[in-house]
């Protein structure tokens, strides 16, 4: 097995040979092997995280057409390191009355839930953590851990604003998890498997985004909301509740939250790429260009796509105004969840009826179905909007003394 096209297994076997030769039981050697594999993966993730800090500041600057950090080192590359050192040096203050154990546990859990996501992220056909056959659900579970860590942080820092911020954030994350999970179902139906590798392979012929553009849109919106990034970031909104549940955390603990959030955003960029944009496949070109098969190259492709996903998230972050909490939640329950359920039913029925037909027919029909749904929803929204406006005119017109009803 030459090294080029299958690096991981090659190293794995070589290591295993080394270990078993030392007389260790095979079980133990696999454990050690996994250990090394995981450590390498996590170090890669952390390095990426530091790089992301730099990317974020640079790209943000570009949006607001000012230069990003470029004081230290070429293009300010050393800037993130300076930040980290600063964070480590800063004193950790635990507020009086805070509940020690939970207070310290929260940032660790927040970071751990993000790192867990990396276990199933498929970097390339060969390089990936583990091919769980319940990978998609695993992704939701990691999200649940995130919600829990926010509650712990909010409650334990014994600060009214932190608690309020934490609960608003949790309400936001919870309600956006529903459409996210529903839209996760769509690739599962199309690829008929929950394993990450299965989904990417199924997309060799046609990317899922063509099959269900609406599904992708909803997933992206709810993912951004789940991350707590603008326009849904009421939690860190400077104007409203100071810094949400981050308030009481100083120094490295805050650093963990911040780094966790960034990595979370990138990982979701990766998941969007994997679920809807065909992971590391280059739109089926694999068959002709054998060299694309090489895992290292396809890893680069995947990272490029993930970066694009992350760029979109950042682009949305810095160009959208913040949404008020009740619009936010109302938007989700009244619009996003029903829409995602409808799209789910349509995809289910369509994929069932056309199961036999060639793929391009399936793609075409699915695409049409999604367009129709989109058109319908706009129609309904326009209707609702019109009715709303009519009610408004009717009420505000001087002739009607009726007090404006509805939620004051």
């Amino acid at each position, binding site marked *: 097995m030459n090294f080029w096209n299958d690096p991981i297994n090659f190293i794995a076997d070589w290591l295993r040979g080394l270990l078993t030769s030392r007389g260790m039981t095979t079980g133990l050697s*696999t*454990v050690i092997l*996994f250990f090394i*594999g995981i450590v390498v993966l*996590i170090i890669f993730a*952390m390095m990426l995280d530091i790089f992301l800090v730099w990317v974020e500041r640079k790209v943000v600057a570009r949006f607001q057409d000012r230069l990003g950090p470029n004081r230290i080192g070429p293009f300010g590359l050393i800037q993130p390191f300076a930040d980290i050192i600063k*964070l*480590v040096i800063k*004193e*950790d*203050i635990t507020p*009086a*009355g805070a509940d020690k154990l939970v207070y310290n546990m929260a940032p*660790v859990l927040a*970071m*751990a839930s993000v*790192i*867990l996501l*990396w*276990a199933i992220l498929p970097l390339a056909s060969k390089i990936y953590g*583990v091919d*769980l056959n319940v990978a*998609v*659900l*695993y992704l939701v579970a990691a999200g649940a851990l995130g919600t829990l860590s926010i509650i712990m942080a909010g409650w334990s*820092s014994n*600060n*009214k604003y932190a*608690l*309020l911020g934490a*609960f608003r954030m*949790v*309400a936001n994350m*919870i*309600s956006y*998890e*529903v459409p996210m*999970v529903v839209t996760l*179902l769509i690739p*599962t*139906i199309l690829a*008929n498997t*929950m394993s990450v590798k299965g989904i990417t392979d199924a997309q060799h012929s046609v990317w899922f985004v063509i099959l269900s553009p609406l599904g992708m849109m909803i997933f992206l919106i709810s993912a951004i909301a789940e991350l707590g990034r603008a326009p849904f970031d009421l939690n860190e909104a400077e104007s409203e509740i*100071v810094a949400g549940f981050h*308030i*009481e955390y100083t120094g490295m603990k805050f*650093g*963990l939250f911040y780094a966790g959030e960034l990595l979370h955003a990138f990982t979701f960029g990766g998941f969007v790429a994997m679920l809807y944009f065909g992971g590391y496949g280059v739109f089926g070109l694999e068959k002709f260009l054998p060299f694309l098969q090489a895992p290292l190259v396809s890893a680069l492709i995947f990272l490029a796509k993930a970066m694009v996903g992350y760029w979109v998230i950042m682009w949305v972050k810095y160009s959208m105004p913040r949404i008020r*909490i*009740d619009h936010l939640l*109302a938007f989700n*329950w009244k619009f996003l*969840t029903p829409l995602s359920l409808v799209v*789910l*039913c349509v995809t*289910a029925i369509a*994929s*069932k009826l056309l*199961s036999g037909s060639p793929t391009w027919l399936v793609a075409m029909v699915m695409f049409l179905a999604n367009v129709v749904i989109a058109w319908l929803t706009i129609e309904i929204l326009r209707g609702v909007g019109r009715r709303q406006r009519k009610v408004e005119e009717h009420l505000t017109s001087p002739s009607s003394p009726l007090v404006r009803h509805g*939620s004051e």
Partner: protein
Amino acid sequence: MQNDWLYIGLFLVIGIIVPIVPLVFSALVAPHKPNPIKQSTYECGIETVGESWIQFKSQYYVFALVFLVFDVETVFLFPWALSINQLPIFAVLEGILFISILVAGLVYTWRKGLLEWI
């Protein structure tokens, strides 16, 4: 034993160790001068008024409730989504029935005006 889960378990263990390392490091390096002023909770200046475990609207509870029901529903739907190709059309309709029943629940909460966030 399941190799996959062993991997995940190991991943979790390391996932917890990785954040702890900088914390321990910073605990060692950072200066430790706790004094009451510094440790008072940050209230933009004003002293903390009353305890922080205040009660608040039951709105949060309703949202958590609706989330719980829909969460359990999606979990039910996952095996259905997987086995959709092997089964006759009847299964698909059955799934749709399952979803529609729960959408009725959502409509009920909507009608009752509980989704507003007063």
